[in-house]
């Protein structure tokens, strides 16, 4: 019987995992990274500029070309020609699914090439990103504490999701393997065969 692609992938699971991880990394660089930049320039910046509260008018918003970030500077900082120094920004919004998505996703796809964890992963990062977008809008338009909440979501929340869940999945996957190891068939000596 001719081996199918799936049976080959199962047989060479480690190699398949590494190949998928490399492919995912390449897809990130080729597709997702430009989409993140587009998300900052074409979605987040217009949305933030549309926030029309008095507090929001106190910020100058900048999306640098080729960057997936939008910076909120205190009003006047840029027009005085002083700086676009990141340190002067009150807050920085970053498009979701950045490095904290792609690195754990590559790890997950390398460890479990035939499971769709990485897709679930992308979904969870996009969900957190959507929530964080709303929180940033609140920070921009209404309440300063929301910027702190946004900062928390982009550091500890993302780090918790991105490091702890892959670790649990990996440990659980190893437990499954240990409980149900791959069957190895040893040739049985024929009756009467010399030992």
């Amino acid at each position, binding site marked *: 019987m001719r081996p199918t692609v799936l049976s080959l992938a199962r047989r060479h699971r480690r190699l398949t995992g590494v190949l998928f991880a490399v492919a995912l990394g390449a897809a990130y660089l080729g597709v997702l990274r430009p989409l993140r930049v587009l998300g900052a320039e074409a979605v987040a910046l217009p949305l933030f500029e549309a926030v029309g509260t008095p507090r929001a008018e106190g910020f100058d918003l900048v999306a640098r070309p080729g960057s997936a970030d939008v910076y909120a500077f205190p009003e006047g900082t840029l027009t005085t020609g002083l700086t676009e120094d990141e340190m002067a920004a009150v807050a920085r919004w970053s498009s979701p699914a950045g490095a904290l998505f792609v*690195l754990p996703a590559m790890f997950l796809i390398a460890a479990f090439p035939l499971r769709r964890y990485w897709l679930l992963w992308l979904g969870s990062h996009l969900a957190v990103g959507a929530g964080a977008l709303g929180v940033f809008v609140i920070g921009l338009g209404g309440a300063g504490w929301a910027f702190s909440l946004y900062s928390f979501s982009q*550091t500890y929340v993302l780090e918790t999701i991105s490091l*702890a869940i892959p*670790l*649990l*999945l990996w*440990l659980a996957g*190893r*437990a499954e393997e240990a409980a149900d190891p791959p069957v190895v068939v040893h040739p049985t000596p024929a009756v009467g065969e010399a030992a």
Partner: protein
Amino acid sequence: MELGARKGRGDILPLPDAPSPMNTAQQLLQSHRSLALFLAKMLAAYAVWFILYDLWLLPDGRLDLWLSTVAATWTADVLHLVGVGAVAEGRTVFTHAAGIEIVDGCNGLSALSLFVGFVLAYPGAWARRALFIPMGLAVIVATNVVRCASLLLISGWRPDLFESVHGFHALFVFYVVIFGLWVAWTHVGERPAEPALA
């Protein structure tokens, strides 16, 4: 089946209920509730730290200054060990070719808190946790010292590479080390007791 019963050549069957790092993870992933509870514990620890840091420790500045100064001093010491002349002055370390300042965001404090949060949330014996946390903190501080030393060397040798290596280091080095420490904790924290010999 008895503990230690042998199957085939030399492999001991595990007890069905024997705790191991792997089935603890399986238990946490078993239901949305157990996973949510675990994540909530972690995030609660981080939230307490975040608020404490933002409201008190950051404005106070002493913890950051102390950690940055220690990192700068030890960076100079490490460079001396490898035969590079270096001087530390407060948060700043110099060689004959370059200098770096270890600012608040670069002293590894957030990495320390990230490490501790998981160890507090993941099941394990408190006595082992009390030993493991200081050891892990020491490993992260040592990692940061090596990182600062290599960054200082790079800034003297190839200043154009500094920014990219600085970003790379912050992301990869700390995360890889923290991930490794977390893996270690899943094995150390709930290691089953050795069976008593009959």
